[in-house]
């Protein structure tokens, strides 16, 4: 159990680093979702299934969706800006 716990913690650290190092924002959200899933697994291994249950939905679905919504909006805005600039030329 101890080895599993240490392995999971190391994996979480690695995936957190991977999120930061991911260049594309959309890919970053997918990595964030994976990170949330790992966190849920970690809570389960450390004997708190209650927290694991909420983490699995909040961390793997709700939070990435929120970030995704914000990104969609930003990208759309940039597209509109570019479109207007091209029109102006």
């Amino acid at each position, binding site marked *: 159990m101890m080895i599993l716990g240490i392995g999971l913690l190391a994996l979480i650290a690695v995936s957190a680093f991977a999120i930061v190092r991911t260049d594309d924002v959309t890919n970053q959200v997918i990595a964030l979702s994976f990170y949330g899933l790992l966190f849920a697994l970690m809570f389960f291994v450390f004997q*708190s*299934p*209650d927290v*694991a249950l*909420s983490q699995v*939905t909040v961390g793997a679905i*709700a939070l990435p969706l929120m970030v995704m919504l914000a990104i969609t*909006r930003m990208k759309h805005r940039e597209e509109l800006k570019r479109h207007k600039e091209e029109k102006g030329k």
Partner: protein
Amino acid sequence: MNRRFRLLLFFASALGVGAIYCAGAGNMPPWGVYRGPYGDVIVGLAVFERHATDTVNAITYDYRGFDTLGEEFILFSAVTGVMLLLRPQKGGKKEKEESQENPASFRDSAALSEAVQVFTTALFGFSVLFGIYIATHGQLTPGGGFQGGVIIAAAPMLLYIAENTEAFTRIVSHPIVEFFEGFGAALYAIVGFVALLIGAPFLTNVIPLGKTGDVFSSGTIAVISTCVGVEVTAAFILVTYEYLREILEREKKEEG
């Protein structure tokens, strides 16, 4: 601030944090050892006193039920704040009608494969059922109102990912969601006041405890867990819907 100075600053602070971290880690209890007395006491008492096999929920919804009431209203006021900030601006309604006449003004289609769509739609019913199960069995198995509520609220989000915003909006834009958000929060407080009417302190477990292991057991714990489930479901749905609506309306405004 050049690059060299920044690196130096980083290594100096990393060394400091590392030293404090190592000192703290060396003083931690060994792996898997629990030192406090309260956990052991409450594990022995929860089934006997409250007929609840999930001690965690016996604590959150009964022994420290007043704290959980506060947490519930933190969520409630946070959602109210989001709704207040993202409320439609003046003249927003008129614009909405205009854009409804011209639905081609924004793209709305899922870019996912049919396999993903079928799988996600099939999961919809399952996750709602699973959420209800988790919320109503909080006193027996790990889970409870908050977890169940979040799982139910994740179901329309799955549909949003698989289908499109229209399918999502059709489900969650119903005004009854707002009603349930307040209703769930209020019911928790009402359960607390019922105890006052009988003459017991606020949030005392006054409902008959029932047989340990039954769904209808453990008195107020099961009731409160279900209330929290209703509130959390509505809260999460409302927040996602408000964000999405804000994004869509601004997009329409900017395009128009």
